[in-house]
């Protein structure tokens, strides 16, 4: 047992506190899921209750709408492709920054940190203008993919740097002596060793791309919309269909929630690496 000298024993009170906090975190999410499984009369009955006859009616309505199916597909395409591109480009760049001394290295490394902090809202106007009038990328999924890859790259480079720095250089040396070139060393020796880092980076990237709203709102039309954009339009209609909205909300929340349960350790490692190291 580590830290027995400093770590005090748990008391019933500490368990009570942590359980209360867990309920506080989960409660609002459970309210959303419960509402998505309710009929309209149940939602508006005037007393919120967790006891009701669950129905999949809202999901049937949401997924039966071909528009929604299309927007979900768009979200999936955009998030998957941009995550793939970000990871490949990002791990290569992180490797260059960690392992090589080259002209301009400090600029690249400092610039990465600065660009990581740019609020997406700041990009809406220029990206809208450039994509529409210079690149011909407006209302296309590739336009959204390009900007998502760009905003996620600094973050991925940042996270992966600390993982790459932990790979023992002796391993790379050994591979070089065996005749591997720099690219073989990277792809066959370094990449397999930073798999946990790649997993964390992939989850964070996918989450940001899947959840992103404001750039997608500005860059898409009614064919290329992603799901977060759709739901924002849906909620400002006059008669809010709460059951269906919560069904869409749950659908949007499912991939991040699943990732969290599958890989909470990697997520916390990534979060800590992002905040503490770098």
């Amino acid at each position, binding site marked *: 047992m580590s830290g027995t*000298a*400093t*770590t005090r024993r748990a008391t019933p009170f*500490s*368990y009570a*506190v942590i359980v209360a906090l867990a309920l506080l975190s989960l409660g*609002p999410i459970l309210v*959303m899921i419960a509402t998505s499984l309710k009929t309209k009369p149940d*939602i*508006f009955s*005037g007393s*919120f209750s967790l006891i009701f006859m669950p129905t999949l009616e809202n999901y049937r309505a949401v997924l039966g709408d071909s528009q929604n199916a299309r927007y979900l597909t768009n979200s999936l395409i955009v998030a998957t492709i941009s995550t793939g591109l970000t990871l490949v*480009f990002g791990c*290569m*760049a992180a*490797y*260059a920054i960690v392992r*090589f001394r*080259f002209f301009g*290295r400090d600029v690249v490394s400092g610039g990465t*940190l600065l*660009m990581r*902090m*740019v*609020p997406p*809202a*700041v*990009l*809406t*106007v*220029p*990206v809208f*203008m*450039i994509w529409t009038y210079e690149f011909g990328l407006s209302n296309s999924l590739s336009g959204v993919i*390009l900007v998502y*890859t*760009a905003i996620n*790259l*600094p973050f991925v480079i940042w996270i992966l740097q600390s993982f790459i720095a932990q790979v023992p250089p002796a391993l790379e040396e050994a591979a070089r002596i065996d005749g591997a070139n*720099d690219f073989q060393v*990277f792809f066959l020796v370094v990449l397999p060793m930073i798999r946990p880092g790649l997993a964390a980076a992939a989850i964070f990237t996918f989450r940001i791309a*899947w*959840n992103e*709203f*404001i750039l997608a709102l*500005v860059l898409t039309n009614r064919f290329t919309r992603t799901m977060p954009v759709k*739901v924002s339009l849906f909620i*400002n209609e006059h008669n809010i269909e709460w059951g269906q*909205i*919560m069904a869409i909300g749950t659908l949007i929340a499912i991939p*991040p*929630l699943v990732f*969290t349960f599958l890989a*909470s350790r990697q997520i916390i490692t990534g*979060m*800590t690496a*992002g*905040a*503490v190291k*770098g």
Partner: protein
Amino acid sequence: MPSRQGLNRATPYFFLAPAAAVALVGLVYPMLRSVWLSFHEWSIGTPPESARFVGLENYRWLVADDAFWVSVGVTLAFALAVVVLEVVLGVALALVLDRDLRGTSLFRTIFILPMMIAPIVVGLIWRFLYNEQFGPLSQALKALGLPGVPWLSSPDMALLSVIIADVWQWTPFIFILALAALQGLPASAIEAARIDGATRWQTTWYIKLPLIAPVIAVAALLRLIDAFKVLEVIYILTEGGPGLSTEILSLHIYKTAFVSQQLGRASALSNLLLLIVLVLTLLLVLARSLRESRAGKE
């Protein structure tokens, strides 16, 4: 072997090239364009070449615009409130729960759930919770015999309601980092304090907190920078209203550009927001290097 040497020197640039190309096209160029556009008047639907150069007019207009200053005030109030609340709550909870708890990893998983779901969805959830007719919060108040609260419809309450949603989502971030820092403290320091007769309270206040302060400072700065990025939750909850009571800068940029269609002015706004974030980032770099130099001495 000269050819091998040549490859070595070029290698880092090969590795960097794809990322650099994407960042140049998708980040650097747009930001330069934003600076350019802030000195022009341009309307949607016309090619950018037809934009008219207006010098500092957009900035002059901003400084004279009351809505801009209201938005600055709302942004600062929001950012400071969420950071202070999240740091105080997160650190306090970490101190209380720095114990040999069973099931810590399950609890940690639960605590990161709110951070992982889309801000848009967080907005939906809280808009439902805050609903004055059938929202669970109002119902709970009614069940307790308390009067209803105009969560989102009153200009005095709306900002607080938005802050509560952010605190719900992000306090666990500080909590998890603070707990990790506490559990990583050297046992010797705490042991020594205890032998010297320090009370539990003194140990916390004079030993533990100062030791984790650098981590907390970095985490707080990260949250502060993120607070300037917040847009979605507020867009869904209030769309900046009632009045301008929750119109933070990023939302104000969006509305200026795509609702009032004043793109030059929106660019000027964007550049100002960028400047604020830039200054905060430099502070972050400073805090980090201070911490590293301190860690190096130990």
